[in-house]
């Protein structure tokens, strides 16, 4: 009697759940905004990578007689104050801006995630000390701290990216730490510890895979923030230094001509907004697709 009841109860608990939950990719793909965002982002990245092949001109080719032109058959998106082709510059600038954002977030990940794993796993004093360092860094608005670091180390793309990486590290640290704390309390981790598996084996094999999803969501949203920050710093002349084009640099130089040729600030702004929107929507999509089953309950 009891066995049948137990089996049915067990079946009721497990059976209907597994097949109704489609795979991660299916769930992500069914989220239309996130999927469209992924396609848009892929196009932006592809266009930037292919810039040398598809750009009609060199991004630094000066053509003074045709400066500040509007859209023409030769220059689809017009030219800037030195007669450089806006479309070509936009494509090349995409490489710089997207790579810069990716670098900053990569630095933040490399610093923040291992420390978060460590703090969450070990706990105690290291956790307390790392947590307080994070608190202090978070007291400064990101862009102000980045400017302060640039003040000490001198302007330039590399400094700007390192600065942003340091500024964003505590955010990833917090996410990784919180997720680690959760996994640390799971039975399978305790079991691993009790049979004597060393931490350096447990962390990458048992903890990291569970920490990866919240980190991934945060990374996606952070890429959007880093892209905006790079643009802001470059706009101020503290990031990418002309003649190299980034979307921020183009906005900065375009703003000087806003009275005569407003188009110059229009296009780089659209590019930044598109990429930022895409990163945010992908982040939302990842959050939904990677989330635990319980979140379905209230919809």
């Amino acid at each position: 009697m009891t066995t049948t009841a137990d089996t049915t109860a067990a079946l009721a608990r497990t059976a209907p759940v597994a097949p109704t939950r489609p795979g991660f990719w299916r769930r992500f793909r069914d989220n239309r905004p996130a999927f469209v965002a992924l396609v848009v982002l892929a196009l932006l990245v592809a266009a930037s990578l292919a810039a040398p092949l598809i750009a009609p001109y060199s991004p630094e080719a000066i053509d003074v007689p045709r400066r500040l032109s509007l859209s023409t058959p030769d220059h689809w998106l017009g030219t800037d104050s030195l007669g450089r082709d806006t479309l070509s510059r936009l494509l090349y600038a995409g490489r710089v801006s997207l790579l810069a954002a990716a670098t900053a977030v990569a630095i933040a990940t490399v610093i923040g995630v291992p420390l978060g794993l460590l703090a969450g796993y070990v706990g105690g004093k290291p956790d307390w000390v790392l947590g307080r360092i994070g608190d202090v860094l978070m007291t400064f608005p990101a862009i102000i701290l980045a400017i302060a670091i640039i003040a000490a180390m001198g302007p330039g793309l590399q400094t700007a990216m390192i600065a942003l990486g340091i500024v964003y590290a505590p955010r990833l640290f917090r996410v990784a730490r919180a997720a680690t704390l959760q996994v640390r309390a799971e039975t399978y981790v305790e079991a691993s510890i009790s049979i004597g598996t060393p931490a350096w084996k447990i962390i990458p094999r048992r903890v990291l895979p569970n920490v990866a999803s919240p980190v991934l969501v945060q990374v996606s949203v952070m890429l959007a923030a880093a892209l905006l920050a790079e643009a802001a710093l470059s706009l101020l002349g503290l990031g990418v230094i002309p003649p190299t084009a980034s979307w921020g640099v183009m906005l900065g130089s375009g703003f000087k001509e806003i009275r005569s040729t407003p188009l110059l600030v229009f296009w780089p702004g659209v590019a930044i907004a598109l990429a930022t929107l895409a990163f945010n929507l992908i982040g939302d999509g990842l959050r939904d697709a990677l989330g635990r089953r319980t979140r379905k309950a209230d919809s």
Partner: protein
Amino acid sequence: MLGLLVRRLAFTIPMLVVVSFCVFSLIVLVPGDPAVSLAGENPDPEQIAAVRERLGLNDPFLLQFWHWFTGVLRGDLGQSLFSSQSVAGAVFARLPATLSLALLSLTVALVLGVAVGVLAAMRPGTWVDRVATFAASLGVAVPYFWVGMILVLLFAINLTIFPAVGYTPLHENPLQWFLHLFLPATALGLAPAAVIARQTRAGMTGVLREDYVRTATAKGLPPARVVGKHALKNAAIPVVTAFGLEASRLIGGTVVIEQLFALPGLGSLAYTSVFARDFPMVQGVLLVVAALVLLINLLVDLSYGYFNPRIRQS
């Protein structure tokens, strides 16, 4: 409430000390000999020695910090490296413009964000909700500095309603003060408004389903009273949290916006000091900004106690 205040202050004051130490330690990041890098282009030995003396670089590091920190406590933030100005004087001369900009932007963010969020939450699934949600996604993604440029183009160049640049102090001419700050504050306030709208919508949709809201509606209260008196206060905590985070980000954004609109605030002081490598000035601005953020966080924490009385005890 007093207990909460004491507890939060017990956290904030040590934070301020640690933050000042970090601000001061920034000089460690200057590559090579800071006195050489900070003495300007092609410095002669005398200038280097003068800078070294001025910054007290001959003392051990902790002693240097102690001198600086005790000065800070007395309201003395040091001297500019390149002008005879005191850092405290320069910072406080610039503070009103930045505070005006920040307060006005936060007002835009809060009023617009809560209004849009409440409207969307009251009619979930309708076109109002969909338009609001779409606008919020867009508002989060569109760069604030770009919004600033577009606003200048539309309302200062094409339609000459607002001035494109400059600042008038509030006590000189309140109308001009407002007109000069309207575009920059809108540019800076839109993205936080979008974030606040999202939080408000999420919080309100939950609260509006509660029994006490149904009771309030059933006993015949007009929707405005139900929302204003019963629902909003209970949906407030996540909104206030978002507000605190956005406020910190918004203060960061003032640097860029002040530059675009030529406002004489802390941000533009930081900007010129960074290019001049006027280190004491950079440190002073940084300290004041961090103090401002800590103050905002303190106020946010205290407001939790107002919105949720249970927090006052624990």
